[in-house]
């Protein structure tokens, strides 16, 4: 009796997929989380400067505003010199500015008493933001920014 030899089917080579899936899921999770690695950013909401809005050119109401001037020292253009109400000079001491603003608030000024931040030409953006922070920390809510002047 003749024997019929069956040809063996060649085995299909299949690479192991499981480790590959694991790596790919790691990549997916990494890219999903990646945008969150940035430092926490927040936002300050502000409104249009009054020099170019509907009240541009009109005389502002004569109110005794609290004026915070930010001057650029001659010897260091990256630094700042803080002047409050044209008579109190704090140098770069924002803590002193905060204490002075809190003192003004304690004397009975309302929270919506106008505060004007008036930076000189060349004042760095960060000092203006810090001055704004001090006014907010002193619980003032009506804070304006002047357009820089020489």
């Amino acid at each position, binding site marked *: 009796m003749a024997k019929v030899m069956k040809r063996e089917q060649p085995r299909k080579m299949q690479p192991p997929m499981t480790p590959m899936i694991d790596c790919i899921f790691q990549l997916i999770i990494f890219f999903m989380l990646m945008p969150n690695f940035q430092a926490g*950013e927040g936002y300050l909401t502000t409104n249009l400067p009054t020099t170019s809005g509907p009240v541009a050119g009109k005389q502002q109401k004569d109110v005794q505003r609290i004026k915070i001037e930010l001057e650029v020292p001659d010897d260091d253009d990256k630094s700042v010199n803080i002047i409050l109400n044209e008579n109190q000079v704090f140098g770069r001491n924002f803590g002193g500015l905060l204490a002075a603003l809190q003192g003004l608030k304690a004397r009975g000024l309302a929270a919506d008493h106008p505060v004007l931040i008036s930076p000189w030409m060349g004042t760095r953006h960060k000092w203006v*933001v810090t001055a704004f922070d001090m006014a907010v920390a002193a619980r003032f809510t009506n804070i304006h920014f002047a357009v820089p002047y020489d």
Partner: protein
Amino acid sequence: MAHVKKKSANTGAVSMNMTPMIDIVFQLIIFFLLTSQFQQLEIEQVTLPMSIAAMPKDPFQFRNVVINIVNPDNPEVIVLGRTMDYRVIEGDNELSAYLKDRKLSVIEGGEKLNVILRADAMVPYEAVASVMLAAGRAEIQGWWITTEMEKDEDKKR
């Protein structure tokens, strides 16, 4: 004659076909790669100022224009990767014209345009003021200024 039950030939373990799954996973990877690149188009590398008054907000509830002010020594305004002229001049400058167009197209869609300013901490403030004036020409009144949120323990006064 006894019947001998033959074992079924199909007794192999059930295995999933991995190839379509790999395809789908690669599609997802490509999607996340591209979306992260689109988000970064709007944002330039700047060192933001610190602020204790800043609050986290969700910008995606509005249609946004992100205005970046970079290069403290020679401030440049960059919007969607494109440098724009923002100098205060008679009539519209490039930035104010762009903001006007964007505002019109957003309003036509029944939405509100929100302007987000990302200025480097060391740019002169007059650059920020010039950008605000350009936005004023486009009659945009609401702004968000981006800062890093300062935690109480990080305060250095």
